């Protein structure tokens, strides 16, 4: 077992998948010679050559659009958006083609592509470098949306994403790219897409989160435990399609739910979770399923960013509120 951080896990998985299947190609801005601005693709061009790991012109619509064509002609493109904030020029390609090619052609053409992108705030960055807009993708039928929260998950989920015959938006929480290391098996393994993970069992309340916020949630959980509150913690892992089953099983047990995400509140993924829970576990609810999220503002520049992302303190505060709801 190697000990590595999330970024290394991504790099290692790309390498393993490129070795396993020579249809896998990796490209994007600065991805080739330099190995990516975060170094997620470091040394891949050296190892696999300029026909497997390429620098692209500075054009996100083209990165995705060209990837669609490559997928149609026998390759498995794993492309990078340098930051999630720069994916929007590619929205037309993603919504109109990536997500639709299979259904449009009734299965004749498919886009087995992975679109990787670092996302999320907390790195004291310039504007557009702190986005979390997973909800936009989650509303588009035909896409899968996956977010790992640990190096171990990153490897298993990315490998699954690359092997998935459907297109996958793979969002990497850059705040924790290098935040901690973990033992990650050297051999291949797959973590299924579409399944959430109960990270911690408990009975007082269900907390659902994903990506970098999992760390704040787990810290908050410890703080809650110190107060005698025992949350069950679910890492959603796949944002689309959502694993309703795991969530509902937990909510039926706890009756209370807190959803924590970093994205803006309104029409965020939290809203969908609240709705699923309502539809499937209404009679088990002892308190309103509640969201603790980023504000409905653009992500502030560094001088304001500490206000934006829910902190463990705010999470505990909400947990307490919910556990005390009507009791």
């Amino acid at each position: 077992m190697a000990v590595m951080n999330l970024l290394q896990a991504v790099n290692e998985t790309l390498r393993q998948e490129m070795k396993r299947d020579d249809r896998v190609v990796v490209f994007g801005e600065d991805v080739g010679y330099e190995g990516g601005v975060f170094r997620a693709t470091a040394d891949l061009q050296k190892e696999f050559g300029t026909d497997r790991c390429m620098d692209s012109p500075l054009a996100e619509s083209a990165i995705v659009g060209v990837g669609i064509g490559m997928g149609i002609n026998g390759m498995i493109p794993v492309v990078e958006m340098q930051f999630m904030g720069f994916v929007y020029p590619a929205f037309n390609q993603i919504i109109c083609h990536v997500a639709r090619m299979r259904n449009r052609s009734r299965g004749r053409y498919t886009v087995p592509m992975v679109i990787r992108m670092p996302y999320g705030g907390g790195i004291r960055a310039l504007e557009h470098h702190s986005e979390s807009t997973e909800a936009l993708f989650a509303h588009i039928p035909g896409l899968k949306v996956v977010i790992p929260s640990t190096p171990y998950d990153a490897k298993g989920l990315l490998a699954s994403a690359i092997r998935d015959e459907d297109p996958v938006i793979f969002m990497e929480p850059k705040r924790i790219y290098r935040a901690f290391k973990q033992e990650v098996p050297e051999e291949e393994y797959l973590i299924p897409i579409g399944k959430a993970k109960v990270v911690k069992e408990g009975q007082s309340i269900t907390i659902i989160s994903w990506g970098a916020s999992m760390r704040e949630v787990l810290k908050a959980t410890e703080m809650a435990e110190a107060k005698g509150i025992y949350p069950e913690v679910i890492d959603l892992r796949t944002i689309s399609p959502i694993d309703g089953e795991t969530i509902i099983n937990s909510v039926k047990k706890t009756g209370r739910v807190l959803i924590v995400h970093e994205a803006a509140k309104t029409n965020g993924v939290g809203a969908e979770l609240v709705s699923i829970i309502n539809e499937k576990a209404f009679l088990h609810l002892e308190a309103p399923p509640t969201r603790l999220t980023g504000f409905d503002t653009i992500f502030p520049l560094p001088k304001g960013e500490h206000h934006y992302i829910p902190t463990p303190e705010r999470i505990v505060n909400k947990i307490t509120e919910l556990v005390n709801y009507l009791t």
Partner: protein
Amino acid sequence: MLFENYNPMEKKMFQIMNQEGEIIEPDLMPNLPREVLIKMYRLMVQTRETDKKALLYQRQGRMLTYAPNIGQEAAQVGSAFVLEKKDWMVPAFRELGAWLTRGADLKKIYLYWYGNEFGSQLPEDIRILPVSIPIASHLQHAVGIAWAAKLQKKDEVVITYFGDGATSQGDFAESMNWAGVYQTPTIFFCQNNQFAISVPRASQTASETIAQKAIAFGMPGILVDGNDIFAIYVATMEAVKRGRSGEGPTLIEAYTYRIGAHTTSDDPTRYRKNEEVEEWKKKDPIDRMRKYLMREGMLTEEEDKTIALECASIAEEAFKYVEANGDIALEDIFKYQYKEMTPQLKEQMEEYQQFLKGRGEV
């Protein structure tokens, strides 16, 4: 050579056969046997008759929105004719002639315009992508397919069709640029039919010609008489050769005219003069080739009528088939969204089926 002789900065238009069906550049005239010429001609006529029937059915309320090709048949057939089976075609939505030339089944084509996704499910050996409606977006796919061919050392070239309007979209420039950088075997084939719906070519771009735009991306561009099937054939052949021999992409501007409406929802008399249309009708690409064939003794009036009748009846038969078989099954809406239905989709489908069952509708 051809591309040097027709440097786009000089704004010369490449033509082999003039409006009267006379060969004015005999040195460049391709040496094609009669059967091939008749095949080309027949494809143009099939395109025309298919359009005419579609317009008729549409007026009768049996067909939905339809985008006619009348006037652009030479550009479509002449270019697609050059491709081999292994090559790819990435269409927009006004390339019927190219579809037929590549062997697409007319039943599928009508089925698509009839409002059924199975119309886009062509058999594996017909390498045509589905109709792409978001203007210019598919050019990127054409670059990707060509790049993948190149990287995998497959001897395939890719032709992609688009209109004059499409050149204003960012995706046009991005894909041309990428093709230039990675020298992909892509033929960018612009059917400049002078209009993007109501907007004339001159309001679309200040570039003197569309062919000139190639310069911005480091590739050759050529302006071709789009109603001259021979010029189109030769220019595309040269572009395909470039692609096959690793010389990279080419931009072809086929200068033509949309004789009909933009689609059946459009009324072109609102934005253009009938005189202009009449002028262009004189340049009709089918008439022109007919004149050539007759003058060369390759086609009689009789034969010509037979071809038209045969083509019309092929169109009729195809549409009848579609009308009889055009409905879709409910599951098909759900089944192809992902490789496997998600739990959400299953649930939504089942709930709806339940509802229909409750009303005795299933």
